[in-house]
């Protein structure tokens, strides 16, 4: 099993290709229990690909992904969720023809702990009161912000120890972005480790403790968020100078 200071997630020399195109060229990074770690980078740098590889949605060409001492390559995607990885995917991925409540319920498919599930619904509705107001509404009719809340709420309902979040700020008004990030910090303080992928480096570096910069499939800069915010290269490329 894990030694006390072993990382919760360890990605080692990960290579992923789409046909002949190398999307990830051997990246390595770690996420420790209790952290918020961010992967920042431009569009097409390989951020979503990284999360999809962790969740087992795309095949790994080379390298390893170790979660909680287990090599994830041996598990199909739905089992990876059961191991404790929640994933709110790029573009939110809510089921538009289902109601809000049905979306949340589906995320408990693999769970058998009925009482805890009820507590988790309560928790999601406390974090996002809007979702409770709209729980019988068809999810496709929600606004972008509400859909993002649902995507995060659904990830919470799978109750992972590690939550992968793919661009939660995308397409949202600044005030909603603030709101979502406030909730993410709350979720983290309650004990969930977070790996956050963002184009909005400003917000990501504010909430995370460490970060990695991904450029065309390679990690070019890494460090604490304090160090990253001062790094001239990061400043120029991602924080608007």
């Amino acid at each position, binding site marked *: 099993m894990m030694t006390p200071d072993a990382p919760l997630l360890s990605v080692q020399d990960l290579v992923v290709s789409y046909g002949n195109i190398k999307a990830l060229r051997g990246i390595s990074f770690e996420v420790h229990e209790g952290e918020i770690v961010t992967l920042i980078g431009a569009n097409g740098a390989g951020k979503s690909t990284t999360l999809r590889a962790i*969740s*087992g*949605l795309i095949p790994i060409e080379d390298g390893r992904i170790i979660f909680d001492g287990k090599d994830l390559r041996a598990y*199909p*995607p*739905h089992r990876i*969720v*059961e191991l404790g990885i*929640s*994933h709110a*995917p790029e573009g939110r*991925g809510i*089921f*538009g*023809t*289902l109601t809000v409540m*049905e979306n949340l*319920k*589906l*995320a408990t*498919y*693999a*769970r058998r702990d009925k009482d805890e599930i009820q507590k988790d619904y309560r928790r999601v509705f406390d974090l996002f009161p809007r979702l409770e107001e709209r729980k019988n509404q068809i999810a496709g009719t929600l606004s972008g912000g509400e859909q993002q809340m649902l995507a995060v709420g*659904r990830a919470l309902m*799978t109750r992972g120890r590690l939550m992968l979040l793919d661009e939660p700020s995308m397409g949202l008004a600044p005030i909603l972005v603030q709101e979502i990030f406030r909730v993410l910090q709350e979720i983290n303080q309650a004990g969930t480790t977070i790996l956050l992928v963002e184009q909005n480096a400003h917000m990501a570096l504010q909430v995370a403790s460490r970060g990695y910069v991904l450029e065309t499939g390679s990690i070019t800069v890494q460090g604490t968020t304090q160090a990253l915010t001062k790094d001239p290269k990061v400043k120029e490329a991602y924080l608007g100078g």
Partner: protein
Amino acid sequence: MRFIIQQTLNALQLGSVYALIALGYTMVYGILRMINFAHGDIFMVSTYLGFFVASFLLGWALHLPMAVIFVLTLLLAMFGTSLLAVFIERVAYKPLRQAPRISAVITALGVGLFLENFTLATIGPEPRILPQVVPVINFNIGGVAVSSIQILILAISALVMFILDTIVRRTMTGMAMRAISFDKTVVPLMGIPVDRIISITFALGSSMAAVGGVLYGIAYMMDPYMGIRIGWWAFISAVVGGIGNIRGAMIGGYILGFVEIFVAAFLPSTYRDFVAFALLLLLLVFKPTGILGMPVVEQKV
């Protein structure tokens, strides 16, 4: 007027069978975006399964009450047909899931031809009828002839369709089926084994066809080619109702039942297919997605 009521009953009876089969086409299309062209022949096999189960149970010297034999025939035909459909999906369709869609469609046609010719070779081409497992009682209600078989077909069809509709709307599995139909890529992230849901879909769809098969067998003659003809009408039912939509398939089935019976009642019977397909084309011109169909949103690959 009596004639109309009589024909309406006949139309409902035939429509029930079309609706039950149409469900299998529409459910598989809903989650795989694939037309399972073997489904009509799976329906045919289910009728023969019912035939053998009923013959066996009747021949068995246990003297089971008829109602028990009928229910057992229905359940065993459903079970056997589900196994067959799930097996076909595993060995013939699953390996082609990443292949171009046309490959799976051609494979399905091949599977259908196989089932048909296998039945032809092993059982023979002569038409058969299910041994009598339902006492035939004829009622005369105001000059309209109603048989116990007719009532049974209408009632059982309505019951199993109601159960299926409830499964799809209320259970976790049903929700997962609807989620896969909307966006398959995200479903595994909910901890849902997509392959298992696909198997359950095939099992449910083919069970419905088996109910249709046994009910068909107690009312009409069976032969190895029935899967093509009935299957086509059921497939068109699914399209008319809006393929991918479960209630649409039910409605479509009854519409096709009415078209077939009433065209044959008022026009020479050779006009039947011609009029039915002409109506279908007309409907598709004005409502390309069928009656309850939604515009198809292409999934992200």
